[in-house]
């Protein structure tokens, strides 16, 4: 049910007080609806002979209740639930005598605001509240215990402060006197303490931090012994009904939690399921890049972090060693191996091997064996660079964004570039490689490219918005995935302790974690 407005009319057809409950209705429309009502119900005589108290027009329904010299009127949609509306109307008509001594025009106008306040308590955003008259009274009188307590405390504090002040003053005087009698100068430090005391007397928050909610109302179940049996009967009846429906070709399924198909629209892509077949020995390399690039060019900060983890499937493989090959230029990345591994072996021949007395690898568990970190210093080191160029003009902003793939050996997949927009403006995209989506609710423009590799190493997006200035379009976030590593350290061989080679699988991923142009 949607209740649009409630009003009080005089019998002569004047709208005395009216309150609208849904949003976005203009004054002209509201007045129009109200003006139409007296004409629709016709003169008094018609209204008396009529056996119902509602009128419908093409667009709305009026439900009314005559009270001596006035009408209480609700304006609802035509599809609204009449039973609910009548319930509301009943409440409204009981509210009026509660605030007005008689039902005539003068009295209503004298209590216009009281009525409006009360009306507000009955209906919320077009839906009825379940309140009774006493509650409405309480709500409108606004007599709050907490406020009184708060006031009392405040008063007491003020009093105490005053008292303290007086005492302090007395003391001060006494001290002064004493000092005078002793011929010394009065000490002013005390005075300063006094002033700071008096200024800090206002309490800052509600005195009682009670968080307990009102006790949980007992579920309103059927009462009485006979009902329980009936309840069982009802379910039988219900099953019969459902069976009948099934026979008539209506499918019925039990209610199950449907997982929230939450499509995260942030720039960071969701990690995909493992794409490679796992062998008994599995080596996974995860690389993540964090970068902040200034909009005027130049890297503010940037680093690449990686972990190599190993997972073995059976106990007899729990002490394999891994031969790595490091093709990265020296001095780029700082490498670090797990302390349980033999460091010497690593430094000399790039083999990751357990220390002779080291614990074996746990079975079926990912263990990090190697980490590296590379701090980026130049913008040119980034796998991809973005050039965002907003151009302000009198009729809005024109924005060009160009990406350039700088590491042609890496192919980026699932690239998502998120451009924030000024609030509530739809962009007009004039040129775009790949695809774009305007997400109105988040005020962003999402530019997606399935793959960026050497074949399309540059591309542009060009759009314009009717307002806003260049600050609005930052920070631009970039997200991507790749199977090529930024620091190319790869596994070449896995061997058992006895020297025999083992079947192994390798999984590499290079993702952006926080890549933004600010």
């Amino acid at each position, binding site marked *: *049910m*949607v209740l649009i407005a409630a009003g009080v009319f005089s019998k002569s057809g004047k*709208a*005395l*007080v*009216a*309150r*609208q409950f849904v*949003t*976005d*209705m*203009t*004054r*002209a429309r509201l*007045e*129009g609806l*109200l*003006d*139409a009502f007296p*004409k629709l119900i016709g003169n008094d005589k018609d209204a008396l002979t009529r056996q119902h*108290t509602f009128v419908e*027009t093409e*667009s709305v329904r009026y439900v009314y209740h005559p009270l001596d010299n006035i009408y209480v009127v609700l304006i609802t*949609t*035509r*599809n609204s*639930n009449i*039973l609910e509306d*009548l*319930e509301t109307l009943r409440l409204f008509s009981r509210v009026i005598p509660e605030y007005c001594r008689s039902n005539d025009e003068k009295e209503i106008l004298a209590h*216009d*605001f009281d009525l*409006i306040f009360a009306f*507000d308590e009955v209906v*919320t*955003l077009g*839906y009825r*509240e*379940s309140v009774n008259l006493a509650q409405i009274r309480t*709500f409108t*009188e*606004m007599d*709050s215990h*907490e*406020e009184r307590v708060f*006031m009392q405390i405040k008063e007491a504090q003020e009093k105490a402060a005053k008292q303290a002040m007086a005492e302090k003053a007395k003391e001060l005087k006494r001290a002064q006197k004493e000092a005078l009698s002793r011929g010394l100068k009065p000490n002013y430090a005390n005075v300063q303490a006094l002033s700071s005391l008096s200024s800090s007397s206002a309490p800052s928050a*509600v005195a009682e931090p009670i*968080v307990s909610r009102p006790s949980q109302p007992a579920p309103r179940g059927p009462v009485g012994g006979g009902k329980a049996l009936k309840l069982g009967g*009802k379910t039988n009846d219900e099953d019969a009904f459902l069976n009948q*429906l099934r026979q*008539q070709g*209506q*499918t019925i399924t039990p*209610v*199950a*939690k*449907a997982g*929230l198909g939450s499509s995260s629209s942030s720039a960071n892509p969701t990690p995909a399921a493992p794409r490679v077949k796992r062998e008994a020995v599995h080596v996974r390399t995860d690389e993540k890049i964090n970068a902040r690039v200034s909009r005027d060019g130049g890297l503010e900060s940037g680093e690449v972090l990686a972990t190599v983890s190993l997972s073995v499937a059976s106990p007899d493989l729990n002490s394999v060693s891994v031969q790595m090959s490091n093709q990265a230029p020296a001095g780029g990345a700082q490498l670090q191996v797990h302390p349980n591994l033999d460091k010497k072996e690593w430094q000399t021949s790039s083999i990751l091997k357990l220390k002779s007395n080291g614990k074996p690898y746990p079975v079926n568990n990912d263990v990090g064996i190697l980490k590296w970190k590379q701090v980026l210093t130049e913008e040119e080191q980034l796998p991809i660079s973005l050039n965002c160029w907003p151009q302000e003009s009198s009729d809005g902003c024109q924005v060009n964004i160009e990406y350039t793939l700088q590491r042609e050996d890496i192919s980026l997949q699932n690239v998502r570039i998120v451009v924030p927009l000024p*609030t509530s403006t739809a962009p007009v995209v004039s040129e775009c490689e790949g695809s774009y989506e305007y997400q109105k*609710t988040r005020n962003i423009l999402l530019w997606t490219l399935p793959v960026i590799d050497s074949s399309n190493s540059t591309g542009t997006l060009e759009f314009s918005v009717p307002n806003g200035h260049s600050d609005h379009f930052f920070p631009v976030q970039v997200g991507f995935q790749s199977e090529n590593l930024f620091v190319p350290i790869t596994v070449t061989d896995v061997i058992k302790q006895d020297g025999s080679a083992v079947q192994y699988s390798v999984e590499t991923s290079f993702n952006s974690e926080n890549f933004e142009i600010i």
Partner: protein
Amino acid sequence: MSSGELPCYTLIHVPSDLELPSESQLKEKFEKGGDKERIDALKKLIYMILNGDKVSQGMLMYVIRFCLPSNEHTLKKLLLIFWEIVPKTDSNGKLLHEMILVCDAYRKDLQHPNEFVRGSTLRFLCKLREPELLEPLMPAIRACLDHRHSYVRRNAVCAIFTIYRNFEFLIPDAPELVTNYLETEQDASCKRNAFMMLLHVDQARALDYLSGCIDQVGQFGDILQLVIVELIYKVCHSNPNECARFIRCVYNLLQSQSPAVRYEAAGALVTLTSAPAAVKAAASAYIELIVKESDNNVKLIVLDRLVTLRNTSSNEKVLQGLVMDILRVLTSPGLEVRQKTLNLALDLVSSRNVEDMVMFLKKEINKTATEANDENGKYRQALVKTLHAATIKFPDVASAIVPVLMEFLSDSNETAASYVLHFVREAVHKLPNLKEAILKSLKDGILSIRAPAIFMSALWILATYCEPEGCLEVLKLIKNSIGDLPIVDSEIAEQEGGEEHVHKEEETAPKKSAAPRVTADGTYATQTALSSTVTKKQNEKPPLRRFLLDGEYFLGASLATVLTKLSQQFTALNGVGSERSNRFRGECMLILASIIHLAKSGFTSNPVNEDDLDRMGATIKVLAQGIPELDGQYGDACKQSLELMLNAKSTSRLDDPTAKTGRSKDFVEVDKTIKFTQLSARNNQQGENLFDLSLSQALGTAPKSQKFDFSSSKLGKVIQLAGFSDPIYAEAYVNVNQYDIVLDVLIVNQTSDTLQNVSLELATVGDLKLVDKPTPVTLGPADFSNIKATVKVASTENGVIFSTISYDVRGSTSDRNCVYLQDIKIDIMDYIVPGNVNDIEFRQMWSDFEWENKVNVMTPIRDLREFLAHLSASTNMKVLTGDAAIEGDCGFLAANLCAHSIFGEDALANVSVEKALPMDDSSPIVGHIRIRAKSQGMCLTLGDKISTAMRSRRDGQPIAAPSA
């Protein structure tokens, strides 16, 4: 943006004699007064703003300085109303600086120890449309969600809801926040509000929550159950595959304690599935509601739902089984409800349960017989009508119905009795097997008939359908009912008593020229009649005699026809010229002659009219001479024309319901395009959600179906207001909404000076009201600007808007300059829609309406029907007179028209026109059109409209009136 376009929440009637204080007075009150004076001043200020007065910035500052810090509760609430209506932006749409101070006050109120202050502030925030103001408040609003008072929490949820809906970026995680909140919430009201928010902003989450607690739905409060039903309806509407999951839940809610929930659930159930069991369950729930709820409004609206349910042909079968349940509604008082129920039941009844229904209705009729009041009479009438229709549909039940109905011949309610007679007439004609029984009961009942018209029809039926053998019996009946002959003499004798009887007879005897011939023809029949009238002379006169003495001579005329018919049949039986037939004719002539005598004697108060006399005279002649050529006219031709009439009636009856209800047919055209829901674009879903649709209709935001012809394009509605060489050129686009007119005026500075203070001043004539004054603007050289003004329309009258533009030229010392603009006329056709009333209502309204406007016809159109069609098309009035009635070509035409205005006024019109020379096709049409309406304005306006419409041809080209 003019204030007419801003959302408006409150309207208070301010009496015109109320004296509003000046600004300085108000300021003083704010500054010096106590809480009471401030409250009073603030109220006055609110009145002023509501009245459309502009408030100066200084005033705002006073309110902020003196009212905001107060802790008085009433003042706090008044302030909230004040902030609702006060303009918060300057003329450029920028937020006022003062509002920052106000924003801080909001924040403090949101942390106020008084829970009610918090709650009402949160409620106010629902109406705030300035994101700049809301942004700093967000943490405080979130904190309120955990307040220990449910009053605060539930308003906080609403605030979050509206803020999220309007400015999502302020609280992007709102759905999640509210979902978490909902999980822990216990208060029913808060739960409802939270659920309602999810329903509107994130259905997936709402569904998730519902799935989690679907088994406890039955124990929820009614307000929450209602929202759950709404959710299920919405979800299933947009995604029909979901239906299957929720049928059980909806079915459970059908048994809810609250009638409102049951109603809503029934509505949802039928949208979810069209399986017969579901429809049956829903329909049963509806019927239960109608029977149990005492309120007539509910009954009527729920009945409407049943009727719409019935309109889907697949549901019809299901509902047919429920006819007897529907009839239970008849036990409730309220004629309108009963009438609707009867119509529905009649519509649904099938051969299987018609017997039951008839039995039930019979019982109902008997019930009404016990008490007689106005409404009962009408109810009986409706029952009789329904029974009649049922017999036509299912002739088998007629034998059961006839005896019941016959009892109503003597009913004092003439309409009910005449319905009975219509029924009897049709039954006698169509069902020969029942003829015997019907005629017999008619003969038994005829003497107790109390209304002349009924008596007349009953006699007609008897005479037309009696077998030749029965003629004598009918004649006896007539004689019985007319009493002593000759009428005048016996009446006088009765009046004057015994001794004067002889004297009077002598006096009147010479006058009786026709009567004496057969005075003492003492047949068997007359004897009995005499004795019977003598015995009850004092107390009661036989019916026919009574009617005649009351002056109902038309009865005499029809009696003449009846007698002729009888004597013809009798003659045919006994042979022409036989003694028996001659005697029969003689009797008839005696009766007629004495009626004529009575008519001429001036004995009765009502004078007889010539036609009736003539008729009786003519039949006497026919009786006396015997004209065989006319026999056919009185016999078979009569039955034939009845047949024709009955056929015409039944066809119109058949047409009627389909035309009225517009029932959806099951068949589709072969070449109709198939709609694939999967392929259709998301925004034009097939069958829009009813909730949203009706809401947008109510708010007036429903998209109107745009027509793409050139004449209705925006350009067609642009009116040029000033000349091209005026210093300021102006043109207006007139946008007519339902209750208001928005003028979008473009003004162009054509000079090379800067014009200051350019203001558009509007004045209206007619029932138009200016909602707000447009604000003045400054125009640079050759600059232009748009000014919007809203005008409210309250009734259908010719409205004219006069306007001027006044301006100052910068740097010149001259007076204010002024450009007078063309006046804008408002076309009332935008407010008139074709109306539909039945004949009885039309007559009733015609006599009720106080204003009439008579327009003489002057038109270049030469064809009568074309003229009518043109009139109807150009004035939006609907022709009520049926096509059958204006068929043919006879040189004249009369028709009724009707229209409603969207303001709820009715207008009627009657067209009576004829060709000046009926034989000449090119002769002009003469006649007049009379317009009636309740208000003078409507009458005059429509008259003007009609007279201009008449002069123009259909293609819209005005043609000079023929200078005749």
